């Protein structure tokens, strides 16, 4: 038994070490109380819905969400719009479909099964419209950045005037959380930029939090199911472990050796 704890300590020590190794060169990011962290972490529905609004009104003109479908908006564990709302959202977008029986491509209103409509035809078109920079697809963006949610949250609030001695090229902006501090994306948020349907005041901080929550969901749509199942699985394993421990003690007691 004692030995096992020694093994566990070693394991934890090692992971601690490798985790620190990765964390070594990070800047201190802004933090906020994310509802999706922790053993029972869930998304804040209101925040997800507001985040969706920020995405459509602000981000979606440049950033795609190519792995997300309109039906996901009505699914459990997401923003949980009603099916009618999700249908209406989908129908508000024009989707290119086809070819039809005449061999022609045509446009039709979006359906639940469609993926989110992309702002640009292709990467080249996106680059051409953005001074050579490609606005990354945001479907898994939170997982694709070292700092995760805190990084995105900080970046959106990290625009500043460049410190003395740093000159920026045309179309480049200074952001204290960006790797290398230079970013092609202009500051996308300003106070009151969107008018929230639920009356929440749209400060930059609030919008940053909402859009980050929304992007966390697009990156991990099954996060809530994962946390729920994880808790059950671990409780089950602990109970089983205890039972097996006592059976083991009993079996080994037949030969009087310390286990």
């Amino acid at each position, binding site marked *: 038994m004692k030995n096992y704890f020694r093994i566990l300590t070693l394991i934890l020590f090692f992971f601690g070490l490798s985790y620190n190794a990765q964390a070594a060169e990070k800047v201190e990011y802004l933090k906020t109380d994310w509802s999706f962290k922790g053993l029972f972490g869930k998304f804040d529905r209101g925040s997800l819905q507001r985040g969706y609004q920020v995405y459509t009104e602000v981000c979606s003109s440049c950033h795609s969400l190519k792995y997300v479908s309109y039906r996901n908006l009505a699914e459990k564990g997401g923003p949980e719009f009603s099916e009618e709302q999700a249908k209406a959202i989908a129908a508000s977008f024009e989707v290119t479909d086809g070819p039809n029986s005449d061999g022609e491509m045509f446009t039709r209103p979006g359906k639940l099964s469609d993926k989110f409509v992309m702002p640009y035809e292709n990467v080249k078109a996106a680059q051409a419209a953005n001074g050579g920079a490609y606005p990354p697809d945001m479907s898994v963006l939170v997982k694709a950045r070292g700092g995760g949610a805190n990084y995105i949250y900080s970046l959106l609030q990290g625009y500043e005037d460049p410190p003395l001695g740093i000159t920026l090229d045309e179309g480049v902006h200074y952001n204290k959380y960006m790797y290398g501090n230079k970013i092609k994306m202009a500051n996308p948020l300003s106070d009151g930029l969107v008018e929230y349907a639920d009356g929440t005041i749209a400060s930059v901080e609030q919008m940053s939090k909402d859009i980050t929550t929304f992007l966390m969901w697009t990156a991990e749509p099954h996060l809530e199911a994962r946390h729920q199942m*994880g808790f059950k699985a671990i409780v089950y394993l602990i109970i089983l*472990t205890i039972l097996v421990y006592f059976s083991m003690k009993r079996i080994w007691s037949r030969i009087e050796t310390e286990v």
Partner: protein
Amino acid sequence: MSDHEYTPKSKVGKWFNDRLPLLTLANHLTDYPTPKNLNYWWTFGGILTFCLITQIVTGLTLAMHYIAHADMAFESVEHIMRDVNYGWLIRYIHANGASMFFLAVYIHIFRSLFYGSYKAPREIIWIIGIIIYLLMMAAAFMGYVLPWGQMSFWGATVITNLFSAIPLVGEGIVTWLWGGYSVDNPTLTRFFTLHYLIPFLILGLVVLHIWALHVPGNNNPVGIDIKKPSKDTVPFHPYIVIKDGFALLMFMIVFAFFVFYTPNILGHADNYIEADPLVTPAHIVPEWYLLPFYAILRSVPDKLLGVVAMLSAILILAALPWLDTSKIRSAVFRPLYKQFYWILVADVLILGYVGAMPAEGLYLLIARIATAYYFLHFLVILPVLGYKEKTLPIPLSITEPVLGGSPDLVAAKNKESLNN
């Protein structure tokens, strides 16, 4: 294999067993006499078998949904994560399962190092183990390439480029490995094929590993030869089965924590960016379990010698039964070796740490010292120690540790005297 004759009771059983002695095998496995003083470090063999089976089962399921094509691989992984029922669970088990597998294998290897399990008559078990370990690294590396993220692509580029260090034919070999002039679709499809094949090779070798183990029987913490069956042994079932089961459950709790609560912490964020041959990531880092060898590779200034050093660091382990000249197996009775053992553990952890850091300045210096020490341990310290070290007296048997020096044995003795 078995030490005693086994005859099935039923007529059908006997008829079948005479033609294919599966029942004899099952009887051998349940009755297999195991030293009764095995501690929890010995439970990792069972845990590793569990890891292998988990990887194969989850891997098969993933392969049903994954598309091995440079344009579709990344998307198909996202499809698994989003639209396949419990796809996220299966993929996270598979991805974290690789890390758990290596965690367990490192404990298993270092257990052998501490208790001298590689020494005669168990050299073949040990060498098969090293081959399994090499195949595991190959499988893990190729598996990491399959999601076709940035780290997949650039990791594959860096590792395959190592072969270009071979004089004269190096460049040709790299082109041959890639199936083209850069890492691209042909590379991905062949990596997928090999990633699918290797686990079954490992499975076959595991059978040999266990077979080879069942010839001399288990080593044990005291490291002495024991008579089987005797007072020193217990039948594998139920004693070892329940103990391995308990340890496996403890291991699964740690495993589940990673899968359900921090599924991406052991991976690199860049691998959620789709592979782009035109953009090189700021730091190309392999998965944590390869970091010590990566540190050795980078600590040598010459490319070819670096590759040689890295390969030697692994292959030197295969020569261990002959490099370690001490007749005493267990470090419990080798006071000096015990200290050098822990220094080696620290050395490997340090190598892992600097492997994750940029190869410059102080990190590079530490990496070089640690690399030098790694080879010093195996090539100088171990051979010399066998002749110089004054070992402690070893007991004659597990149950009668009259000459015992270890605290475990003293405790066992005390308990025995209490019972008398």
